């Protein structure tokens, strides 16, 4: 198990380099020059060259990548071109907001999703199953930003229960968490239901029935435990997805976070900030995948045995 852990973590190193190279390169294909945003209209060409030298934009691409990667690895994310502040500061400000929102949304969708999935599986093909799966399908087909705006309209404007936007109080978190969480709930409920139904057909379940255990106890203690393995794996993989979904929802609710920062700096062509945001999101995705693999190995003795 331990050697598997080490191997799995080492595998992230080449992936990290590949992802960082892609992120670095992509940004240089984006049209639009950040220097244009900085220079006053009618500045001399000399001022432009000076400005480019200041941000290292006059170096050849491989050199720029090497310098950038070296700085990133030492924790220096550069200076935001438009905001003129260290990028690390901007990220440090935005990240906790995104993590809180994403974490709560993940919690919401796992608890509600597993609950709904279990109820649906226990009532397979009867009306509770149909109602839950129908509701879940509807919830997963609404665009996140739209759902957010409609929730805002109903609960903040008409009913006045929650603040419209911002991040000043915990109440402001409720609607964004709900918006992101509802989308994830659909997936979790669907996977839990299928996994429960599949696990219930296994031989060991037949044996438990033969031994005379109560059906509900079998379902909740044995079948669910079995079914949770794929659910947990998917949930860990979802970490990156939830941060991705947070991008639109953060913008809708005007919350300070990585998503808002990313969209704003994309429109301002602020390369260093966009690069840092993408790198953060990419690392979240990679760590989520890692977590999923480790959890799967920890929960499933067969996987553990296969890994040696």
């Amino acid at each position, binding site marked *: 198990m331990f050697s598997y852990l080490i191997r799995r973590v080492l595998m992230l190193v080449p992936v990290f380099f590949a992802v960082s190279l892609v992120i670095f390169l992509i940004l240089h*294909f984006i049209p639009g020059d950040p220097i244009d945003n900085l220079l006053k209209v009618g500045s001399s060409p000399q001022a432009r060259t000076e400005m480019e030298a200041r941000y290292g934009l006059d170096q050849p691409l491989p050199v720029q990548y090497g310098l950038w990667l070296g700085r990133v690895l030492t924790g220096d994310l550069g200076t935001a071109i438009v905001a003129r502040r260290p990028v690390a500061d901007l990220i440090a400000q935005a990240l906790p907001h995104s993590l809180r929102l994403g974490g709560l949304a993940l919690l919401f969708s796992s608890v509600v999703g597993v609950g709904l999935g279990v109820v649906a599986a226990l009532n397979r093909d009867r009306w509770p199953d149909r109602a839950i799966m129908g509701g879940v399908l509807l919830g997963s087909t*609404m*665009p996140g*930003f*739209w759902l957010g*705006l409609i929730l805002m*309209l109903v609960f903040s404007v008409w009913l006045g229960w929650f603040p419209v936007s911002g991040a000043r109080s915990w109440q402001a978190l409720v609607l964004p968490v709900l918006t992101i969480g509802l989308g994830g709930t659909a997936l979790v409920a669907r996977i839990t239901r299928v996994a429960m139904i599949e696990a219930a057909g296994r031989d060991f379940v037949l044996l438990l029935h033969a031994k005379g255990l109560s059906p509900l106890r079998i379902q909740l203690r044995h079948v669910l435990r079995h079914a949770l393995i794929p659910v947990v794996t998917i949930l860990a993989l979802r970490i*990156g997805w939830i941060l991705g979904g947070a991008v639109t929802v953060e913008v809708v609710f005007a919350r300070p976070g990585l998503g808002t920062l990313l969209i704003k700096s994309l429109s301002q062509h602020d390369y260093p900030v966009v690069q840092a945001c993408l790198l953060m999101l*990419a690392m979240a995705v990679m760590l989520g*995948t890692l977590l999923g693999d480790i959890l799967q190995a920890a929960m499933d003795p067969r996987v553990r045995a296969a890994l040696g």
Partner: protein
Amino acid sequence: MSGRALPAPLRAFRRPLGAVAGGWLAAVILAALFAPLLTPYDYDIQALKEAYQPASARHWLGTDEFGRDLLTRLIYGARTSLSVSGIAIALSVACGMTLGAAAAWFGGWFDRAVTVVVDLTWSFPEILIALILVAIIGPGTTGTMVAISVAYLAQFTRLTRAQILTLKSETFIEAARSLGAGNAHILFRHLLPNALAPVLVSAMLATGDAIILEATLGFFGLGAQPPVPSWGGMMSAGSALVFKAPWIIIFPGLAVAVTVVAINLFGDALIAELDIRARMRRQV
């Protein structure tokens, strides 16, 4: 004559949910095709005196901030949203099938390279991939189309590769080979046709996701540019007015949700008719 002879998409209509979903999809597609015949108004002519009207007999779904008829814009918006997502997914399927089949067929370092790249992009949210690509290509319908097709490329490459790999070891392939069939014959006449059904059904389901993605890009102002209506663009304009005239954003969102639900239900009916549920899950 027995119903078995009917093609699967028509058989799906015999299921109640399939019929409702298929009926809605057919209606939306027909409305999009014949938009000019159905709509008494123009989608881009402003009538500021009639702005912000709620639903009425004159304007069934009300008017927007420029006094344009919302139903008219919704129908023209279906044109943009459906064609952009449809073409994007078609493009993605064509490239993904080629890549996936080539990877499974040739194996070796090519297969490994494709798998690494696909796994890498697979784990990233489509919206992030699409956002970055639109930023590179530039906003508009072409940019959105390319961005969406790249965002879904990994999915179809993976699915095709998995299908071909499992089919490759089936008995009927061995039989064809022992009868003297060549490589190209086996790939194009046996493997690809058999891999087609799951890939096409998942392409249909992905078109639903692509409609949402297109709407999201449109919401950020990166999709079809005004005055051409798209569902996302309409919601983008409506989001600023959500408290003043909520209907401007409610109806395009409902159009997206109902259409995507219909695509999913019809897809389910198709999967059941084709009896390919187990094969659809084979993606690894």
